[in-house]
Structure formats: structure tokens, C-alpha cells
């Protein structure tokens, strides 16, 4: 292995010239610039993907618990479909196949990647949401309906407020997983961290590129995990589960 040269991060990726400033020097694109840029993409894909996953996953999770058989079956089918195909294959389908079959969905690559990762994760979230609703005693649902609430009202005012607070801890680990899973986006040439690692290490010693990139993933996943833990602490239900 070649000796480590940290000045590398201040040199331009194309011209190999040392930039006057390591980060954000006008006219240069240093390795540091590219890495921060890649990190931005990773965080963008993860955070927006997580939002998509939370919305879709909650809806599907709720559908799977409603009395209407057709809706419940749709929810089950959705979950099985997105859970049983590897993420990278789903990504290729969204990226290479769907835009050509349905020209309406000819969206920018970043949007397609967010959809792919979001829907993949939605299957796992729907599983948690369903489990959360089913752990509530059946009496709660019946009590709501007996009070004259409609089914949507029962969900809105009785079941979901409890279910969501129960589901938050498993969702915390899902938020960490999505950062890790976002690394798959390299396969469709989104300029994220993994893509940066692949490209930059072609031109220099890989350890000195891979070490900071790996650390950055580590820190990002951990940071998202901490944020989720804080939310978890705020919404916890006193007296049940892990709450103290």
C-alpha cells in the first residue's frame, strides 16, 4: 500500500492540482468537495426515502388491519411484493424498466431511486405498523365503534395514537437501515458516497478513500439513530414496554 497522503483531499480530482482551499475553492473540484457532495446525496436519498417509506408504510400497514378483505389483501400483496425482491433488482426495475414502459414515470434518476428505496422500506414499515395495531387489545377497536365512531374515526382517535407510539422503537432501527441501504444507489450511478468511494479509489490508495467514507456512513447512520431515539423518548407511552 502506498504511503498515505492526506493532502489528496485538497487536490482537484481531474487536474491533480492542489487547490488553495480544501473545500469549496472556486474553479476546483477537490476530493473533499466530491466526498461532501456524495454525502449530501446519501443523506438526501435516505431522508426523503424514509419519508416516502413512512407515509406508504403506514397506509399499507393500516390497510392490512381493516375488516375489508379486498383492502387487506391489497396491503398483504404490496408487502410481499416489495419484501421478496432484492433492493438492487427493484432499483434496476425502477431505473431501467418502468420509465420506458410508462413514459409518465420518466422521472429524474434521483426521484426514481428515492421511490425505489422508499417503497422497499415501506414493506418493512407496514409490517411494524400492522404489528403495532394488532398488539392493541381488540376491546379498544370495539369500544371506539360502540361509542358511535366511524371506522376511520376509530383509527384516527383510538387506535393509531397508541399504535404509533408503540411502533416507534422498531422504526428507529429502520431509519438506520435506510442509510445503509441507500448505498445500493451506486448501481444506477447516483453520485452518492459509495459511488464516490468507487470512483476516487481508482485513482489513489483505496484505504485512504474508504476509511473516511466508511466513517461517514457510520456517523450518519448513528446520527439518524440518535435523532430517532430522541423522538422515541418524547412520544413514549408511560407504563408500557421500554418506557420508564
Amino acid at each position, binding site marked *: *500500500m502506498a504511503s498515505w497522503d492526506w493532502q489528496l483531499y485538497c487536490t482537484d480530482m481531474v487536474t491533480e492540482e492542489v487547490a488553495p482551499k480544501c473545500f469549496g475553492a472556486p474553479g476546483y473540484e477537490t476530493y473533499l468537495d466530491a466526498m461532501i457532495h456524495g454525502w449530501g446525496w446519501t443523506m438526501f436519498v435516505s431522508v426523503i426515502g424514509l419519508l416516502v417509506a413512512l407515509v406508504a408504510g403506514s397506509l399499507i400497514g393500516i390497510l392490512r388491519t381493516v375488516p375489508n378483505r379486498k383492502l387487506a389483501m391489497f396491503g398483504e400483496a404490496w408487502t*410481499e*411484493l416489495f*419484501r*421478496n*425482491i*432484492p*433492493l*438492487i*433488482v*427493484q432499483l*434496476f*426495475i425502477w431505473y*431501467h*424498466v418502468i420509465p*420506458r*414502459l*410508462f*413514459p409518465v414515470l420518466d422521472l429524474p434518476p434521483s426521484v426514481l431511486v428515492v421511490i425505489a428505496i422508499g417503497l422497499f422500506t415501506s414493506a418493512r414499515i407496514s409490517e411494524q405498523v400492522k404489528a403495532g395495531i394488532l398488539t392493541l387489545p381488540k376491546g379498544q377497536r370495539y369500544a371506539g365503534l360502540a361509542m358511535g365512531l366511524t371506522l376511520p374515526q376509530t383509527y384516527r382517535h383510538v387506535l393509531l395514537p397508541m399504535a404509533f407510539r408503540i411502533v416507534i422503537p422498531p422504526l428507529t432501527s429502520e431509519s*438506520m437501515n435506510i*442509510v*445503509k*441501504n*441507500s*448505498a*445500493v444507489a*451506486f*448501481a444506477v450511478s447516483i453520485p452518492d458516497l*459509495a459511488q464516490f*468511494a*468507487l470512483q476516487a*479509489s481508482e485513482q489513489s490508495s*483505496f484505504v485512504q478513500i*474508504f476509511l473516511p*467514507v*466508511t466513517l461517514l*456512513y*457510520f456517523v450518519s*447512520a*448513528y446520527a439518524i439513530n440518535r435523532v430517532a431515539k430522541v423522538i422515541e423518548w418524547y412520544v413514549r407511552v408511560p407504563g408500557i414496554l421500554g418506557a420508564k
Partner: protein
Amino acid sequence: MTDLDFSFLTWDVLSSFVAKGLWFSIQLTLSAMIGGIVLGTLLALMRLSGKWWLERPAAIYVDTLRSIPLVMVILWFFLLIPYIAGPLGAEKTALITFTLFEATYYSEIMRAGIQSVPKGQVFAGYAMGMTYKQTMGLVVLPQAFRNMLPVLLTQTIVLFQDTSLVYAIGAYDLLKGFEVAGKNFNRPMETYLVAAVVYFVICFSLSMLVRRLQKKIAIIR
């Protein structure tokens, strides 16, 4: 709107492009499962040993690998292994990587499994005059293994899906087989779709089997 045409996917094409990849994916899954469960059980025993010089290294190993994207782990090993063991090629590298990586997931499952065995069982073993090795091997691990069998198998389905990530180092797996076939016939869309269907059928039927097994085990207990 482009028309899809699957007619080029004859048995000949499938067996010459895809079969090799499917075989590698299965081999990779099975050997990483066996190696991963053995190594994972060792790691779990280390973490539950009560000796800090065994606990700490195992905990660091498991927690580190679990917080890094699998793609990065694959790339790390692919670039590091030539320095340690000489050039091995993408396929063997993938075997080593997946065994070492999946061991961390299996170890967490086995740890939960060992903890699910009532403490009284351990004490009973010791009271019978058994050594630590005998108590673990004859009393605790068989029960832990059995309690966790459905979870271990579910993890193996996840492992099978994860093997598609060897795409990063260009190993010839199921996905790659379809991709090469698609490039040769200039029909990439069709092959991606069929690849998705094949993965779905395999994973879905396996998870149905696991669900049935889970019911069976639940009745006996």
C-alpha cells in the same frame, strides 16, 4: 411505450446464462449460512461469556460490521483480501465476505436464542456435574437453536436477497446471469423483470415454508 418480448428466453438461453449464476447464488447463500451460523454462535457465546476480554472484541466486531452498508463491506474485502491472501477472484472473495458479515446477524439471533433458554436449565446442567462445554453443547444450544430456527431461516432468505449485491464486485450471480443474457440479446428490460420474478418466487415460497415451520414448532412447544 415499448413492447416487451420474452420469446428469446428459451431453455437454452436460461441454462447457458442464468443457471450458472443461480447455482453460485445458492452456493453462496448455503455456505454463508452454515459458516455464518457457526461463527455467529461462537460470537454469541463470547458475548455471553461474562469475561470482558471475550465480550468486548466480539461486541466491537458485531456492532462495527452491522453499522456499515453491506456494499461497503463487500468492497472493503474485495480490495483488502488480495493484500492478505493473494488474488482470489470475485467469487471466493464473496464467499469469505458473506460468511464474516452474516455471522454478525446470526450472532444476534443466537444471542437472543441462548437468552430465551431459562436460567434454570444452565443451573440444572451444572448441578448434574456437567462442564460449561457440556452444558452449552448438550442443554442450552440445542434448545436455543430450535427456538430460533424460524428466525435463522428468515435471516437466510434476507441473505439470499443480499447476495445480489455481489454486483458491486462483478461476481457472476443470478442477477448477473440475467443481466448478461439481457445484454447479449439487447433485451435488458425483459431480463430485469424476469430476474425480479425469479427472486420473488424463490423468496416468497421459502418464507411460506418458514411460516408453516413456525406453526409446527409452536404446536409442539
